[in-house]
């Protein structure tokens, strides 16, 4: 059963600062807008008639960056916990399938990221209310910009977890991660097929949920590839 494994993985991330990261990510994204709106609120209000939408767009310039960075750090932390004393051998010698070991890691990181998305929703909503952006609160858009980046980022999670678990040296996944963060930052310049662009929620069709659906599809695919590869490898 997978549940005890997940509980065990939650126990292992204790005192590793991962919960703090879960809080800092969304807080940081909103804090940047606090600075932005604090300094030039009047100017920003003039930019678009729909002030809520403009506010959400501003928020979303940093959300993808925070998510990709968060994924890089979380996956690398997660596998370094097992790498540090080569605890993989002890873990895999327990009566568990290697597939569930991998699934458990994926699930725990997803949970943390999802919780971050919930916090993002609350922070964005809360700060938005204080700004006086208008009576019509676009709840649907608010939800979209809080949760869809998470789903759209699943392929990045699948890729980073894969590379982090099979690398003995965390320099490799971290290097890949840094490149990913740069990609996420330059999202508007990237072609639509690049997975690092997806959390920005922009595409030629103009529907954000397409990114989320693509994210889930390719996220599952990359997760499966990583899992099969992890299962195939000898544990040293």
């Amino acid at each position, binding site marked *: 059963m997978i549940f*005890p494994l997940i509980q*065990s993985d939650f*126990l292992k991330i204790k005192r590793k600062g991962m919960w703090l990261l879960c809080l800092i990510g969304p807080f940081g994204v909103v804090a940047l807008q606090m600075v932005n709106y604090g300094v030039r609120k009047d100017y920003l209000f003039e930019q678009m008639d729909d002030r809520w939408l403009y506010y959400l767009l501003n928020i979303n310039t940093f959300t993808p960056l925070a998510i990709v960075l968060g994924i890089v750090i979380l996956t690398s932390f997660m596998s370094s916990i097992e790498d540090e004393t080569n*605890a993989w051998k002890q873990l895999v010698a327990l009566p*568990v399938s290697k597939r569930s070991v991998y699934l458990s890691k994926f699930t725990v990181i997803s949970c943390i990221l999802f919780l971050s998305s919930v916090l993002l929703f609350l922070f964005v909503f809360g700060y938005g209310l204080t700004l006086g952006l208008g009576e019509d609160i676009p709840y649907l858009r608010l939800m979209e910009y809080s949760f869809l980046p998470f789903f759209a980022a699943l392929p990045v999670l699948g890729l980073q977890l894969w590379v982090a678990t099979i690398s003995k040296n965390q320099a490799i996944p971290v290097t890949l991660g840094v490149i990913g963060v740069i990609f996420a930052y330059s999202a508007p310049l990237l072609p639509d097929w690049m997975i690092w662009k997806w959390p920005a929620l922009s595409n030629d069709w103009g529907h954000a949920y397409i990114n989320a659906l693509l994210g889930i599809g390719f996220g599952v695919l990359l997760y499966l590839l990583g899992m099969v590869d992890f299962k195939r490898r000898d*544990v040293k």
Partner: protein
Amino acid sequence: MEYIVETKNLTKSFGKEKAVSNLEMKIPKGEIYGFLGPNGAGKTTTIRMLLGLMRPTSGSVQLFGKDMKNNRIDILKNVGSLVENPSYYPHLTAKENLEASRKILHAPKERIDEVLKLVRLHGVRNKKVKGFSLGMKQRLGIAAAMLHQPELLILDEPTNGLDPSGIIEMRELIQSLPKEYGMTVLISSHLLSEIDQMATRVGVVTKGKMIFQDSIETMRKIAQASIQIKVNDNEAAWRSMLANGQKADLGEEHINLQVEDDEQVAASIDYLVQQGFSIYRVQEETRSLENIFLEMTKEEHAE
């Protein structure tokens, strides 16, 4: 015979190198099996395959009569193990470390305190493992291996990093396991002296090949003292003794006599004197188990 561990033609290659080669390991129930071999002999590689951590290049592993390939999870429910250096989570306390395994093993919560007491770490159960000495980490690893009272305990060089009193404690603990819990134990080492007081069976491996596998008594018999006799005509004397029904080997310089007790030595000498041989020398050659082990592994090296 019912074997708890049985490997058939077990082979593992890394590139061209065969780390384990056609290994046939057989461990009957309730035995303490000493798995011996010099550095790089393939002990750890074999143990990794026994635990399903590595896939054999060819051959099979059966534990409890079940094939590892198809029953890995089922088998591992009854196996406790400690492979090479102890693994642990340094940022967690001793108790939390065990809890991480206990959840997966579905062992009762009380077991944590029990095994901690067993390896004398109960006093430091709430300390982070980061600050433990190597010996303490090793003991924690053994505690984790015993959480679920496994039927088979596999320990790869468990005395690594233990001080003399720790080694003695460990020995007493391991010796008690077959008696008290009916456990079967596989314990690897590169020193025979470390395990000859507790092992009931021995397997010696070098360069990936099993070169000896039998009970410790059989190994002791090989080690037993032999009496060397040098006379004026060794070959004639040897023939005469064989004709008389005594066990003897002809060496280059002397006759080797395998005897069980002193009376037999006296009788043999008496016989030779009566036959008119001139006895030049009678000497005892003792070979320690360790010597035999070294000889065994050396011959293999020379090839």
